Structure formats: structure tokens, C-alpha cells
């Protein structure tokens, strides 16, 4: 937990990350940046999905539509925040010459996406009609 808090403080004290260890080869930093961007794109896709569910499925009952949209949007927000956190941790690990951090997040995200997909299957099978 304290590791998490220290990571969180690094978010807001950008200069501190430069004080640790040595600057890695710029190619590794760029690779880390691209991973960060891939996660941001994933977050944007989830958020876009949330907007799309809300805008393009007006026939769905309000509760189901809001639930699906909220699930996708929450996953998107988590994804974006986690992208920064993971990027900071990787950057620090590279500077210190440590192993890159491992993460449970991809498994968690795939579970959420699977749940949303399952909910969609149920919605399709048992009718869309809302009032």
C-alpha cells in the first residue's frame, strides 16, 4: 500500500522521478510511452463505447442502457488512471534497473469486458424492448 502512495506522490512531483537512478536508453523510454498510449487508447475506446451505448441504443430499457454505459465508462476511467500509474512504475523501475512491475489489471479488465459482453448477449436473447 505504501508503495502505491509513493507512486501516487510521484504523479504530482514530476521532477522527483528524474532524481532516481540513471536515465535509461531513450528507446526504452519511448517504448514505455507507447505502452502508455496503447492503454490510453483502450481507455478512450471504452469511453467511446459508453457514449455509443447511450446514444445509439435508444430502444434499450433505461436501466440496462445506463448500467452498460456506466460499466464501460468506469472501466475507461480506471484504465486511464492505471495507465499513468503503470507508466510511472515502469519508468522508475527502468531508472533503478529493477524488474518491470507485474500487474493484475489486464486480467481484471478482460473480466469486466467479458461481463459487459455477457450482459449484451442476455439483452439480445431476452429482448431489447424498453419503456
Amino acid at each position, binding site marked *: 500500500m505504501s508503495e502505491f502512495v509513493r507512486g501516487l506522490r510521484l504523479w504530482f512531483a514530476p521532477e522527483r522521478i528524474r532524481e532516481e537512478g540513471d536515465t535509461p536508453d531513450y528507446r526504452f*523510454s519511448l517504448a514505455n510511452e507507447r505502452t502508455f498510449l496503447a492503454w490510453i487508447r483502450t481507455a*478512450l475506446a471504452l469511453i467511446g463505447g459508453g457514449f455509443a451505448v447511450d446514444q445509439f441504443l435508444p430502444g434499450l430499457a433505461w436501466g440496462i442502457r445506463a448500467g452498460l454505459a456506466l460499466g464501460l465508462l468506469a472501466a475507461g476511467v480506471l484504465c486511464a488512471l492505471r*495507465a499513468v500509474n503503470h507508466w510511472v512504475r515502469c519508468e522508475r523501475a527502468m531508472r533503478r534497473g529493477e524488474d518491470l512491475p507485474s500487474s493484475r489489471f489486464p486480467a481484471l479488465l478482460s473480466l469486466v469486458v467479458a461481463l459487459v459482453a455477457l450482459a449484451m448477449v442476455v439483452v439480445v436473447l431476452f429482448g431489447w424492448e424498453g419503456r
Partner: protein
Amino acid sequence: MSAAERDPGLQPERTRLAWRRTTLACTVVALLAVRQALHGGSTGAGVLAVALSLLAWLGFLGVAHRRVTGMGAARPDPLSPRHALTAAACTVLLAVFAVATLF
């Protein structure tokens, strides 16, 4: 860095394209946000919502532009935490806006 030590992996180029892809994704989401806001009619809240989502988009665009131009250097600087945080914050802002208009 001498020209002989050129990077065979085209890392700056790939990173630049990654920023462009991400900007494109952000633009799509911002357009969906504007569409959502306009759908509610031109009320005060609707105008505010359009302005906020455009602000988030512009914030993202600013960071992306800085990075894309920065990739031209022989040894591009690493992404600064402030830029990373801004990009993520703009993404979160769009999601918060979506939640706010859901109800």
C-alpha cells in the same frame, strides 16, 4: 549522437504515430461528447458541456503536439509525468462528462 548510430527500430517514428492514433481516438470520443451535448438542445448546460469536452480535446491535442514535434530530436526526451497526467486527465474528463449527461 552521430548519424552512424542511427536507430534501426524507428522508435521516434513509431511513438509519433502512436500519438497520432491516440489523438484520432480522442477526437472520435470528443465528437461523440459534442453530439451528446447537442442532442440535449442548446441550453446553458449543453453549451457548457460542449465547451468542456472541447477543452479536454484541446488539452490532449496540446500534449500530443508537443510530443509529436519533440520526436524530431536526435534523442527525444522521455515523456514528462506532467504530460502523461494531462493526457490521462483529459480522457477521464470526457468519461466524467459522459456520466454526467447519462442522468
